[in-house]
């Protein structure tokens, strides 16, 4: 999450918005967002409704919920999606920026 915070201006420059969905409840979200000073949208999904809709993978034997990141274009289509193989498997910010730059270039 620190990674998103520190690169947030790069997303804004690209006219993109960041939305983080998590399994924690409202109070945990509020505490975490305040402590980490996160500037983007955080959405509690304690019933996992949206996580299930997006097929976020859960490995109960190993690490629990696996990160899932996707980029949705201006028409609402998925243009990049990465289901992490483990908790440390996280795409570089540059990958996100490159995808958004390509989408922006294509829509001009």
């Amino acid at each position, binding site marked *: 999450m620190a990674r998103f915070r520190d690169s947030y201006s790069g997303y804004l420059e690209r006219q*993109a*918005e960041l*939305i983080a969905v*998590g*399994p924690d409840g409202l109070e945990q979200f509020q505490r975490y967002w305040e402590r980490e000073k996160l500037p983007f*949208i*955080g959405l509690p999904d304690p019933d996992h409704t949206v996580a299930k809709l997006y097929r976020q993978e859960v490995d109960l034997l190993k690490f629990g919920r696996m*990160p899932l990141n996707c*980029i*949705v274009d201006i028409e609402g289509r998925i243009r990049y999606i990465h289901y992490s193989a483990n908790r440390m498997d996280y795409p570089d910010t540059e990958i996100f920026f490159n995808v958004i730059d390509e989408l922006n270039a294509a829509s001009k």
Partner: protein
Amino acid sequence: MNSLLLQNGELAPDFTLIDMHGDPVQLSSYRGKKTIVLSFLRGFI
């Protein structure tokens, strides 16, 4: 790759969740406006 997983080119499933200020956030409300990076977290604990 599990064929049940979402794929590039699919319409992103729409949803509405309530943000930390009590306001609804609907994914499709960004259509025609912004590219969205959607990140599903593991949880804080």
